[in-house]
């Protein structure tokens, strides 16, 4: 048996379980759902083929555009909030001392809590009557800064950014720490001999070595922000008057709350397409910058 045949067989066999499972349980439903997007279907009874009507309705629906705008804010906050903060914390928390261990664990803890708990707590922080935030502003003599943090469409989206960033730093932190620990110590030593220190070492050695992980983190960030909505849903329910609606909650609402299954499926296909563009764009930018 020649080595190329062996290699090829190993590649096929190694990828097969993943591809089989994935195609059957993920790809088929995705295609199926995209297919529903071409129908006027309530989720019950007969469906009527309507071509691209759902998509043209999406383009003309102002709630969709508002959801998209809100969602872009969430993506931006996640990519430019969660990832850099996690990276800085990871660089600071590399040691195995108990204090670093403690802080690392603490930063991750919001992730283990159910979104319900996190949502309720932030709801109380922003609560218009008994909220901690307004109470603090009061006692600092900043009454004029008081707001209805979640009830006023002018600020509610921004109020929601804080818990979102805060909640999801943990996973990126551990990803970065794992990557940083993987940098071979010889490289560190080599850098020391070269006299590379501080920021120069960071940019010329550390970041390039974990660049792949950072790219993956950005992909996770974008896809996560576009498809999840639970935290915001618990805190505002997408309201008032759609002002904090996201693409995924818009999709869910159409699909399961108001009997517009076909339309909801079309929205979810739109979400995939938008995500693909964003991810392609981000990867392109990150590639051209560093290689």
């Amino acid at each position, binding site marked *: 048996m020649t080595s190329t045949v062996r290699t090829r067989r190993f590649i096929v066999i190694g990828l097969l379980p993943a591809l089989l499972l994935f195609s059957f349980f993920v790809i088929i439903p995705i295609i199926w759902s995209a297919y529903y997007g071409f129908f006027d279907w309530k989720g019950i009874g007969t469906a009527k083929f309507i071509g691209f009507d759902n998509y043209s309705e999406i383009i003309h629906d102002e709630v969709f555009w508002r959801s998209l705008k809100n969602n872009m804010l969430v993506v931006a906050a996640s990519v430019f909030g969660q990832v850099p903060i996690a990276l800085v914390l990871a660089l600071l928390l590399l040691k195995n001392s108990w204090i670093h261990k403690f802080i690392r664990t603490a930063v991750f803890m919001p992730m283990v809590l159910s979104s319900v708990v996190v949502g309720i*707590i932030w709801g109380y922080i922003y609560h218009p009557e008994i909220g901690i935030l307004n109470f603090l502003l009061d006692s600092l003599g900043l009454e004029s800064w008081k707001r209805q943090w979640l009830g006023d469409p002018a600020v509610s989206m921004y109020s929601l950014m804080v818990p979102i960033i805060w909640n999801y730093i943990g996973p990126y932190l551990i990803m970065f720490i794992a990557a940083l620990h993987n940098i071979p110590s010889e490289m560190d030593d080599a850098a020391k001999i070269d006299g590379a220190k501080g920021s120069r070492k960071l940019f010329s050695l550390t970041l390039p070595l974990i660049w792949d992980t950072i790219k993956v983190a950005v992909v*996770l960030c974008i896809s996560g922000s576009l498809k999840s909505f639970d935290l915001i849903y618990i805190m505002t329910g997408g309201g008032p008057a759609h002002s904090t609606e996201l693409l995924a909650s818009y999709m869910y609402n159409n699909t399961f709350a108001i009997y517009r299954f076909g339309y909801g499926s079309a929205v979810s296909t739109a979400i995939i397409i938008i995500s693909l563009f964003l991810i392609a764009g981000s990867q392109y930018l990150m590639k051209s910058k560093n290689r």
Partner: protein
Amino acid sequence: MLQRRFSSGLANGLMTLYALVTLYPLFWLFTSAFKSNEEFYSRPFQLPTTWHWDSFSRAWKVSDMGTSMFNSIIVTGASLVLTLIIGALAAYILSRFQFRLKLAVMGLFLLGMLIPVHSTLVPLFIVMNKIDLLNTYGALIFPYVAFELPIAIFIIQAYMNTFPKEIEEAAHLDGMGYWGTFLKIMLPLSAPALSTVGILALLRFWNDFSFALVFISKPELKTLPLSLSQFATGYMTDYELTMAALTIAVIPTIILYLIFQRSIMQGMVAGAVKG
């Protein structure tokens, strides 16, 4: 030197403060579990006036948490093992081999990360109904693994990309085949990435509500998230029992997180010794 120590002390101090703020919700959850419903609303931030110890046993009994905890452990455990093995194998191939369809395969996996799970509920239900998979552990395990694979593959692959080529060459000289290299060298070396994936997957499996709600209908197969949401009627939520149940459910995940975290920090050393 002194100045440096001071500034690192300051950084540590600030971070500790941040850590305490971050830990507060956990503390809040634990104390809320002891409160009556009335107190939950009227004094959300204070300690309970009387400590309701019985809410734990009531929550446990009413929502039959014994059964659902058992099921959650089985489903989460099986899904976790499958995700790690299948994901690591695929990541190894995508990271260390060149072949024609590589980009297409990676693109396919990327697609799976983008779809909102709710829009797959109905198609998945129909597919699994056709092959008689509904109402088995498999109805949860397979979709969990399939949906988690892309993330697992991408994280592990990015990690493996940083391994120097010499590692494999050395293994090759030792007469190891691909399977040997994968099992004896790549897997141990990737322990930190595997642990990272492990934590994320664990949380997702343990907390998933949508799939568990739709694909499982036998009471004896239901998982924890279903038990946790039993105390809401749509018009009101029994927070005393909800918080108690949430507290019970969160403890295993914290313990497992601590175990995984150890492995993230020690993985490198251990891997180096074995390799």
